[in-house]
């Protein structure tokens, strides 16, 4: 076989190239094939050139070759694996070539996704409350709305007999249960008392209603006998390690023996209540009370399958008439009728609140725990969405801005036969790749940050590594990659190759309308978040510093004071000897929400109590030092005094109460109330003083009428001190306490801290909001930073020429910043009214609210502008200061 000479082969290679055979892989094969054929033909003594043309003819000349090449290309392209690999390789190369943009893109997106992920975890925990109960969708709580003489009560509690009565009267109810909150109790097995917070009385119905399984014990009768208790697994392990707790005895509050009859699994954190000890309801005297006028029992109902809660609610007015009507009537006397009662705008209405909506929708008196609020869910959801949007916008902006650099690439690819769809796929691949990187980094960030976030938000969130979660993440990465990549890819792939290669197409900053509006949008959101944060902060400061009407600083609240029994006075005197302590008051009623409260109806002396003249008023039993210790102000009359024995029937009203009674000259007026609500045995109080209104509930509420009189409420003690050395005062108090009460826990709080606790939800909101707002601005600035860097790069030549012609650095910086500066101003103009609306909506929740003046808005705008300008300034100055020689020398 005659071998072809190298010249021949070169000729064939060149000729084929000329004919357009260029596809890698295919080209070599065809060359070899043709060479072999030519060699074979030349064996028949043909000349090379004849043989070659004969072989070409077999291939169908140029046209046939190209068709075959096209077919091969198509089969190659159809195999997605190879093509994806190709896209992947090119994407990776592109990304690593432009490290700076890739870095900014990934960082911004990763931070955005991480924040979004954390917020999603936070929200989804809120949304999953109580879902773990087997029949959660059929469980309801019996709530009531009462409107009486201008007072409105929204209660999460019902009368003691409601639970058994409902079960008896309505066949559609499968089971009922009730709880009676009891607060802190001292629990002891042998010697040492442990103070337990999560205790409650519960009826045996809880097991059926909540489908609550017992780990030990019998659910049929675990809570049917007085002095029995069921406890949570963790507490059982704490008190009876390694033993069977059933049948063991616990001593409660130093006196009562309780037999353990059951152990239940701890309630998950996503339960709207938390109990460690459930005492048997029959042991509670109140539970046998047949009064329908006092409500203290959280009552839960399990409806039968298919029963409608609406139908049941429709039957409640009848229940009110049957059970409550007669009791109200006997309370007011015979001239009373329910019709009359309703005609005056009064009402008693019962309704059902679904278990699943308690955590996010219920904020009534007597809730079993602190609930969250659906607005927070919306608020944080919106913030998460905003942050993610800002991050995605960065991504889009950077990709389109970089189009100038890639325009040539697009042109060349198109000339070589790339279809638009190929390019779209290529660019999407890049963005999806970026998105996946960002997700991985985001996940790492979440892992690192979650513990700190949990502390801040007081949650116990974990990253749930479940197939569903991972699948969701992958899907989200895909979707975000697609969303963020779709615009740039369409934009870039639409270039016309002719224009691009001639250098006509748009360099980055032209056709920037979309980009500009996206930047505006980003900064609008950022400014909005800043204003939101400032508002929350200002309102919190306002509340903390508002003149409350009492002095919350430097007061220690000593708990467990009831243990002192009749030694209160001795202990008090002992306390007063301690250096620094100025006043001591023994009273459990404190001007902090959640402390002792006692509401009674009063009427003016000399009249019969009737619907018209009854006034519902807080009525607190305190001691003579109450006002001086807590620092209220007497505006009229006098404080209680030991010098007047008659003060035992004296009362001091607040200004709201005086207004409510309509007293012109309150001093010396007399008001009457029933002894413990019993109108048959009345007590008459004489007003001796008026104190200035002070806030004793959250500032979200108005100040209601309040009267204080002398009496016993010794479950806590307030100690005012005037000393900068708080620690030594505490030490001295503790020493005295130990002397009086060895073996009992020494527990105290500071009044100002207890006060601050009323606003934990808002404080938390403030902190979280601040963090996320900062993140949003940071991400937006990151984008702006890259955009300016890019513009500067684009305009290097222009800047160079300007400098050569004598432009100053300042004028160039101004030139570069002007463009984006304008955008920031526009975003401010858009953000201001939006935030104004939102801020006012939020502040509506508060009765006492701070003023959000123009200054706040201007400040937010200026801050955004400044931050943005600093970001741009860095780049601009860098560009402006560069030596024009460097930028003009090339080309």
């Amino acid at each position, binding site marked *: 076989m005659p071998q072809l000479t190298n010249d021949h082969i*070169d000729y064939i290679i060149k000729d084929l190239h000329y004919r357009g055979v260029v596809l890698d892989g295919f080209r070599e094969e*065809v060359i070899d094939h043709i060479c072999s054929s030519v060699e074979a033909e030349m064996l028949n003594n043909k000349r090379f050139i004849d043989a070659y043309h004969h072989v070409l003819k077999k291939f169908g000349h140029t046209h046939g070759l190209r068709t*075959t090449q096209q077919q*091969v290309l198509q089969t190659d392209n159809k195999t997605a694996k190879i093509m994806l690999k190709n896209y992947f390789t090119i994407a990776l190369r592109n990304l690593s070539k432009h490290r700076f943009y890739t870095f900014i893109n990934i960082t911004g997106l990763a931070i955005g996704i991480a924040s979004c992920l954390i917020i999603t975890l936070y929200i989804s925990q809120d949304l999953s409350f109580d879902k773990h109960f087997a029949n959660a969708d059929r469980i309801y709580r019996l709530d009531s709305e009462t409107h009486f003489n201008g007072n409105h009560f929204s209660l999460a509690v019902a009368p003691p007999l409601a639970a058994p009565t409902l079960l008896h009267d309505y066949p559609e109810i499968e089971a009922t249960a009730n709880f009676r909150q009891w607060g802190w109790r001292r629990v002891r097995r042998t010697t040492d008392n442990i103070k337990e917070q999560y205790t409650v009385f519960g009826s045996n119905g809880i097991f059926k209603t909540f489908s609550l399984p017992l780990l030990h014990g019998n659910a049929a009768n675990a809570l049917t006998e007085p002095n029995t208790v069921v406890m949570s697994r963790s507490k059982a392990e704490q008190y009876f390690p390694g033993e069977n707790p059933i049948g063991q005895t616990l001593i409660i509050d130093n006196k009562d023996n309780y037999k353990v009859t059951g152990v239940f699994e701890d309630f998950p954190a996503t339960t709207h209540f938390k109990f460690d000890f459930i005492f048997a309801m029959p042991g509670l005297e109140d539970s046998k009370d047949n009064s329908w006028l006092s409500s203290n029992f959280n009552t839960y109902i399990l409806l039968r399958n298919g029963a409608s809660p609406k139908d049941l609610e429709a039957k409640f007015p009848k229940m009110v008439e049957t059970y409550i009507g007669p009791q109200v009537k006997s309370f007011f006397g015979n001239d009373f009728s329910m019709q009359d009662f309703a005609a005056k705008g009064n009402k008693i209405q019962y309704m059902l609140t679904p278990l699943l909506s308690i955590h996010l929708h219920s904020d009534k008196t007597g809730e079993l725990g602190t609930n969250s609020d659906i607005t927070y869910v919306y608020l944080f959801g919106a913030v998460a969405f905003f942050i993610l949007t800002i991050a995605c916008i960065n991504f889009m902006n950077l990709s389109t801005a970089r189009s100038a650099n890639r325009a040539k690439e697009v042109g060349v690819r198109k000339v070589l036969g790339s279809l638009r769809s190929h390019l779209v796929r290529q660019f999407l691949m890049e963005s999806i790749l970026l998105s996946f990187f960002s997700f991985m980094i985001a996940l790492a960030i979440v892992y690192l940050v979650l513990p700190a976030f949990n502390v801040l938000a007081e949650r116990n969130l974990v990253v749930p590594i479940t197939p569903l979660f991972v699948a969701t993440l992958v899907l989200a990465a895909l979707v975000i990659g697609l969303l963020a990549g779709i615009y740039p890819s369409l934009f870039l792939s639409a270039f016309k190759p002719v224009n691009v290669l001639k250098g006509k197409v748009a360099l980055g900053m032209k056709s920037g309308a979309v980009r500009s509006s996206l930047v505006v949008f980003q900064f609008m959101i950022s400014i909005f978040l800043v204003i939101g944060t400032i508002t929350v902060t200002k309102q919190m400061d306002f509340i903390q510093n508002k003149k409350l009407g009492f002095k919350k600083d430097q007061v220690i609240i000593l708990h467990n004071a009831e243990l002192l029994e009749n030694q209160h006075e001795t202990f008090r005197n002992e306390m007063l000897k301690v250096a620094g302590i100025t006043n001591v008051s023994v009273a459990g009623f404190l001007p902090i929400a959640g402390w002792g409260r006692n509401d009674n109806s009063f009427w003016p002396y000399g009249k019969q109590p009737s619907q018209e003249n009854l006034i519902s008023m807080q009525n607190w039993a305190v001691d003579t030092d109450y006002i001086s210790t807590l620092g209220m102000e007497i505006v009229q009359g006098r404080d209680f005094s030991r010098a007047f024995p008659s003060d035992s029937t004296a009362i001091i009203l607040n200004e709201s109460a005086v207004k409510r009674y309509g007293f012109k000259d309150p001093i010396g007026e007399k008001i009457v109330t029933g002894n413990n609500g019993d109108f048959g045995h009345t007590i008459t109080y004489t007003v001796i003083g008026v104190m200035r209104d002070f806030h004793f509930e959250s500032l979200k509420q108005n100040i209601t009428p309040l009267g204080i009189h002398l009496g016993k409420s010794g479950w806590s003690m307030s100690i005012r001190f005037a000393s900068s050395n708080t620690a030594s005062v505490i030490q001295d108090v503790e020493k005295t306490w130990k002397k009086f009460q060895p073996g009992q826990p020494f527990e105290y709080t500071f009044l100002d801290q207890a006060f601050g606790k009323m606003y934990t939800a808002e404080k938390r909101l403030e902190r979280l909001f601040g963090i996320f707002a900062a993140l949003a601005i940071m991400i937006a600035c990151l984008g702006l930073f890259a955009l300016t860097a890019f513009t500067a790069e684009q305009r290097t030549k222009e800047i160079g020429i300007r400098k050569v012609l004598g432009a100053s650095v300042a004028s160039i910086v101004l030139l570069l910043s002007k463009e984006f500066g304008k955008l920031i101003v526009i975003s401010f103009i858009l953000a201001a009214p939006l935030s104004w609306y939102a801020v006012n909506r939020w502040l509506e929740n508060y009765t006492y609210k701070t003023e959000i003046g123009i200054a706040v808005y201007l400040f937010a705008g200026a801050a955004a502008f400044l931050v943005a300008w600093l970001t741009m300034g860095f780049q601009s100055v860098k560009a402006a200061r560069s030596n024009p020689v460097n930028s003009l020398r090339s080309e």
Partner: protein
Amino acid sequence: MYGYEITQRVMELSDGRISLTEGALYPTLHKLEAEGMLNTEVVNIGKRVRKYYTLTAAGNATAKDRVSEFLDFIETMSSVLQVKFS
């Protein structure tokens, strides 16, 4: 076998009656390669590059299937058409 060799071999086996067109051969080879039926090996011969194709295990199995299918088809057709192959 490389592309040219395949055409020659087919020509030889069919006594010159079947001549594979190059236009059909290469797209098919690339398709079979992408489907994992063929392995390729590239050898340099001077200035030329030669690409050898061999059946993979999967390709072998598929080939056997296809051949027996084809035989089946011929048998069916022969009984339908009432003709006998020697």
